[in-house]
């Protein structure tokens, strides 16, 4: 069942399906894609902090943190 990355929970392993579900590809999503978040990339949601508005994900051997607002644009499925 696909859902938004912003709806994931701590420790969940997901697979990215789509990087721009809100229609257009913003500058921010392009930046994330250039950094390796691509459709088909497996991620581990290390920590999602709704209070702080940030998410930390593990991918390709390193950890990246970005805003939940960006995560709302990303569609994933649970692995």
């Amino acid at each position, binding site marked *: 069942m696909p859902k938004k990355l912003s709806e994931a929970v701590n420790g969940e392993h997901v697979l990215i399906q789509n990087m721009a579900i809100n229609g257009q590809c913003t500058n921010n999503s392009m930046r994330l894609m250039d*950094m390796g978040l691509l*459709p088909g990339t497996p991620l581990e949601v290390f920590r999602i902090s709704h209070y702080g508005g*940030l998410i930390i994900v593990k991918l390709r051997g390193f950890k*990246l943190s970005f805003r939940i607002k960006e995560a709302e644009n990303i569609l994933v499925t649970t692995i």
Partner: protein
Amino acid sequence: MKPNQATYALVGNPNVGKTSLFNLLTCSRYDVGNWAGVTVEKKEGLIRGKRMRRHFRHHGYGHGHRCQHGNRYCDRCHRTIENHRIIDLPGIYSLAPVSEDEQVAVNFIFNESVDKIINIVDASSLDRNLYLTFQLLEMNRPLVMALNMTDVAKSYGFSLDTDKMSEQLGIPVVPMVTRVGQGLDKLYDALVEPAVTPEFQIKYNSVIEEGISGLSKFFNGNLAPTEYRWVALQIIEGNQELKERYIKQESMADAYQLLLSMSEKCKAPLADVIRDERYHYLEQFLADVKIIEEADRVNWTERIDRIVTNRWLGIPIFFVAIFLTFQITFTWVGTPLQDLLEGWFRGPLSAWVINGMVALDLQPWLIALVVDGILAGVGGVLVFIPQIFILFLIISFLEDSGYMARAAFLMDRGLAKLGLNGKAFIPLVVGFGCNVPGIMSARTLENSRERLVTILLNPFMSCTARIMVYALFTSIFFKSHQGLVIFSLYLLGIVVAILLGLVFKKFLLRGETGFFVMEMPPYRIPIIKNIALSTWDKGKEFLKKAGTIILAMSVVLWFLSNFSYSGMVEMSESFLAALGSMLAPFLAPLGFGTWEAGVSLISGFVAKEVVVSTMSIVYGAGDITTQLSATIQEVFNPVSAYAFMVFILLYAPCMPTLVVMRKEIGSWKWPLFSIVYSVGIAWVLAFIIYQVGSRLLL
């Protein structure tokens, strides 16, 4: 024939040591201009350096040999070393720009030709850096890779097989640690080698490959066949400009059709497909060349992070860290060291200087200039060295260990309300030591507007200089509540900064949504050498400020305070006193409308530390603490003392800070504006405190 002149472009992600490499290559001597039409800085310089001279010495250069073109070159290997220009391009993550800065870099790469591109890459996050590298390689132009931060990679537990990398990519790969200048010789060698065109190619899926050949038929005469592949790829990825420039007019419609059919066959945006395949290739490449040495480190990092970024524990842990930082800096280590240093300065050192000058039979006014002007002024600043360096040491330790990234993560939400992001946190913390390096740290922010706001807010972080003033006044008027009062001043500074930040957000950042992406590196035990270098980097700015600006201004101040039209006079009749008296009426409503206060504030403009030494001079006190406190108690009362401290906290950034602001922002407009609003805010707040306070409490 080897070229006498060569131009290189320096390309890479932000924050990988590009500036450090540029400085190494040019010996920090370069020209700064602007890229045409935009407010992006353009740095260009000649490759210089002692290592180059060593090359000459080794090869037997020595005798000023110049060729017919006026270029210097080496007799033995005939390599021309001078007249090699290097241009620093803004940091980019890929050839698809998202900001003005990036656009400049990409335009340059596409349109200008250089002899070689130097691609600087961070060995500890190759996964990300290589994406750009592959795109550059696909352009099939001469490239040299500077593989920087190999020491960081090692401390993360892995290393890279540079020979294999070089072989597979077809370009020289030079491991370096720019921070300590390691690898520079090999880089020079790689640069002066004859240029080799890498034959690197990523094979994409059949649809894309057919698309590339298909588009190649539509190119007009403006494009050389060797460039067809990368331009075709760019067009497939959506680059309109290149499409219009290189596709024949009559074939535009066909090209469009082709792209459309490709899109249908791939069932996904073409740019995504290409990006995906590049990353596939990247992963395989990395698996080939990365050598994992220590897998344990990752596990520890996980465990620590679960606590440190925990919802409930994260922020308290953060505050404990901040508290400890300040405790160590001020109470435990810094202040005792400072007292020691001050004792030595005023005692043995001053005596030695005075005796020396008397022995040399120098003019009394010169002796006075050196002792009262220079020693007092500069000395007053230098005694801060222990505290500042300790603060920077702790910050560098936190940065190196990886904690700072987590702190930025925790601070992001708060800072986001001001339109900034978590990364702005570090420059502001450094600002608590000294605003000068604090402002310089703002360079790590990628967005120029966010950088501007962070720089403008920096002066409201109470620097150590202001503590000196606080310490003096609180020890006299608020002895029993010293800590509390000083803390209240710190807090006031932060509150004003927050309010001002909100104002700036509304008018300067105008709805731009900040973007926060930060890598969380694995934790590690900091390497002493690295922290030492990092501390020195920050601290040397403070020393430079003291050594130059404050020294110069101390002399000026001394002159102004001892002279008048009629020659050398008492301070109360000097130029400075006249200036002070002009200010006095404006300061009266604030509770300190005397020429002495005016004079102290003027001198504080030079450097806020100077306020105390000036006060000790104007109030004629020999020994600072005892006599000065007696005099001060006659002139100030608790309320006006607090108002005075608030004024010092908020009014105009000191001169060195303004100079650095100008340097980092690029114009005088903002520093001057900051003087205006900070003096305004200082005046209003001090006014309220004094008027209301004296009615309520006295």
